[in-house]
């Protein structure tokens, strides 16, 4: 491997067709004379900044029957990701410098994607006392995003403290917005269908009430808030208004909330059980609109692998969550490009550069600026394919199975080396 590539005839996000040159892992404006390049015909492919996922459950340490950092890295590379953020709800919880450093090191060992750990806000995700956020921020893992995801930081005083505290190191609190008392035994979106199916309802107000409160606390503290997996039209409107008022908030939406609706719960198949739950068509429309108009900043997968035994049960006994790393791009293309409502520049922003900015990842989301590390994803927008339950993830809880997908990741380049090439995963980037 030379590490020098000439990507010939590739379409960039503005629609211009040109060549892209990578030398020794870096983007360069023009191929240096006297240097040999591997020339690749990329006609028909669109090059995008390497995707950055803000919300990935890698399950290691503790739940290696669902996923490991290595298997999650493979799935991520196949999905076009060059950076992923490992959620803190592992066992032990990522609430100390030791655990976040371990996760970061496992990511380096896998060598396919940059693994950025997220730190827990509270000790053991229990919502009682702050974890050592400073230690995690100053560790080798350089944590900037803190989240109790899976649980909501519902105590308003604790949430205020967390927002204030992370200002010292330009941190951000990523909130899983779910009022716990309003969602006791919640199993799916509250409404006529939940009533018909006899499943406990998850009311939209349980998400919106926490977001409204957190926006006010963010304004009060002058801090930075990130809202995880926004799922309702009301939440989109709250965030839209807050941004107009100048509150420093960012928000993510998952591919499944952009595509799927609660109707899928009708057959009681727990592959469609997820938290927050799939909502109504009107919510899906509002989420898409928010993504297009800039209210929602990023698409984040909330990739949540579970072993078969956790889903091969009755609905109530089943675990919440679905995988999504390898289908996220196709959903993004459908919502932004195939709909005719947006463009590849916006797609690059919501799949990569916005997330990199929220997390402060200097090497990611840079696209084609000369001298920056080559973290790029090449997609074929015309490739139509059928997702299978089996992906490179260890788990098969894939709700996109059986759907026809348009647009597919063809190559992923991580730090100037291929981690995924011609639909095949590499052992490590470059090998």
């Amino acid at each position, binding site marked *: 491997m030379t590490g020098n590539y000439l990507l010939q005839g590739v379409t960039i996000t503005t629609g211009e067709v040109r060549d892209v040159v990578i030398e020794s892992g870096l983007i360069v404006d023009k191929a240096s004379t006297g240097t040999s390049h591997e020339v690749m015909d990329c006609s028909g492919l669109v090059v995008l900044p390497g995707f950055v996922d803000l919300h990935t459950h890698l399950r290691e340490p503790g739940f290696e029957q669902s996923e490991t950092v290595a298997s999650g890295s493979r799935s991520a590379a196949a999905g076009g990701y060059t950076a992923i953020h490992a959620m803190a709800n592992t066992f032990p919880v990522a609430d100390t410098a030791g655990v976040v450093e371990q996760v970061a090191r496992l990511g380096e060992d896998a060598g396919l994607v940059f693994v950025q750990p997220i730190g827990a806000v509270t000790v053991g995700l229990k919502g009682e006392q702050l974890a050592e956020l400073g230690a995690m921020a100053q560790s080798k893992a350089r944590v900037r995003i803190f989240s109790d995801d899976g649980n909501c930081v519902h105590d308003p005083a604790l949430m205020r403290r967390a927002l204030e505290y992370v200002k010292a190191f330009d941190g951000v609190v990523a909130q899983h917005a779910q009022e716990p008392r309003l969602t006791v035994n919640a*199993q799916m979106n509250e409404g006529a269908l939940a009533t018909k*199916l*006899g499943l406990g309802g998850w009311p939209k107000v349980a998400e919106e009430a926490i977001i409204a409160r957190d926006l006010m606390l963010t304004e009060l503290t002058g801090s930075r808030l990130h809202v995880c997996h926004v799922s309702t039209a009301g939440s989109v409107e709250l965030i839209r208004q807050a941004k107009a008022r100048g509150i420093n908030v960012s928000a993510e939406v998952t591919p499944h909330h952009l595509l799927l609706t609660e109707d899928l719960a009708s057959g009681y198949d727990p592959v469609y059980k997820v938290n927050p739950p799939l909502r109504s068509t009107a919510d899906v429309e509002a989420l898409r609109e928010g993504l297009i108009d800039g209210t929602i900043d990023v698409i984040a997968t909330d990739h949540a692998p579970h072993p078969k035994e956790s889903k091969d049960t009755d*609905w109530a*006994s089943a675990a919440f969550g679905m995988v999504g790393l390898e289908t996220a791009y196709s959903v993004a293309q459908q919502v932004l490009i195939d709909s005719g409502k947006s463009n590849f520049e916006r797609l690059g922003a919501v799949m990569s550069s916005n997330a990199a900015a929220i997390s402060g990842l200097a090497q990611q989301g840079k696209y084609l600026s000369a001298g920056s590390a080559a973290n790029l994803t090449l997609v074929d927008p015309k490739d139509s394919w059928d997702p299978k339950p089996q992906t490179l993830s260890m788990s098969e809880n894939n709700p996109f199975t059986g759907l026809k997908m348009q647009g597919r990741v063809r190559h992923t380049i991580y730090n100037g080396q291929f981690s995924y090439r011609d639909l095949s995963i590499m052992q490590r980037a470059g090998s």
Partner: protein
Amino acid sequence: MRHLLSAADLDKDQAIKLLDLAEDMSDVNDREIKKLPTLRGKTVVNLFFEDSTRTRISFELAAKRLSADVINFAAKGSSVSKGESLKDTAQTLEAMGADVIVLRHSSSGSAHRLAHTDWVGSAIVNAGDGSHEHPTQALLDAMTIRQGAIKHPRGKDLTGIKVLIVGDLSHSRVARSNLILLTTLGAEVHVCGPATLAPASLVSSGRVHFLLDDAIKLVNPDVVMMLRVQQERMSDSFFPTEREYARIWGLNKSRLARIGENTQILHPGPMNRGLEIDAASADSKNSMVLNQVRNGVAVRMAVLLTLLSGEAS
């Protein structure tokens, strides 16, 4: 009919046919020798993950009167309490030769799941799943209402009959199945209960009344169906106290005097006497509670017969 999972599985003709068959079965139950040889050699498994002695006994008796072998499996104290899943338990029982699995489970949709996965191949009867449905209860209620309201009930539907269901509409599987089945049969179904226990989607149907006195006056029902108040609703602020519930939503002597002379009173049992229903109402000539119990056996015989004869054809 392959399974009976929801009252919605039945169209009007199927429902009437089942009720008519249940009338035939009822005649068997009045004979000196209360037994038919029809299901000899078949095995019915009562798989009960929740305690429900009444429903279990009713199914057991129904199966035995049709000469089937019956296995009762109660989750309490069994492998289930040691963490065995629905899938494993059902597969184990099927491996022993079950033809029909009668399932009672606390999780909504569990019967549907058992019927629609590759876990087992048996016919499934939903004997109550979480707060979803309890279709055989609705069938026995429909049978009772039809007998009480129509002189020669065979072949008839419930057109023109006004039913008022009172109680916890949010969590009641009895209410859900009755709403579906009685509506299918042409009855006019109204419901009444505290707003905390009436789902918004139901309220928008326009047939919800919050106060029982208003409901009795407005609806002038032919049938009043009182739902059991579950213990867990009392502790979770759905209504302030048992006394207040009884005062506003309980059927008592004064309300008994205001309903029609021939109005039927139904209750799925077991009754909380003095809470949703007082002794005067429960023991009045309007009370159909024991007819419901009797019809329960007949309806379940009809269901088992229909499922297992369908298999043969």
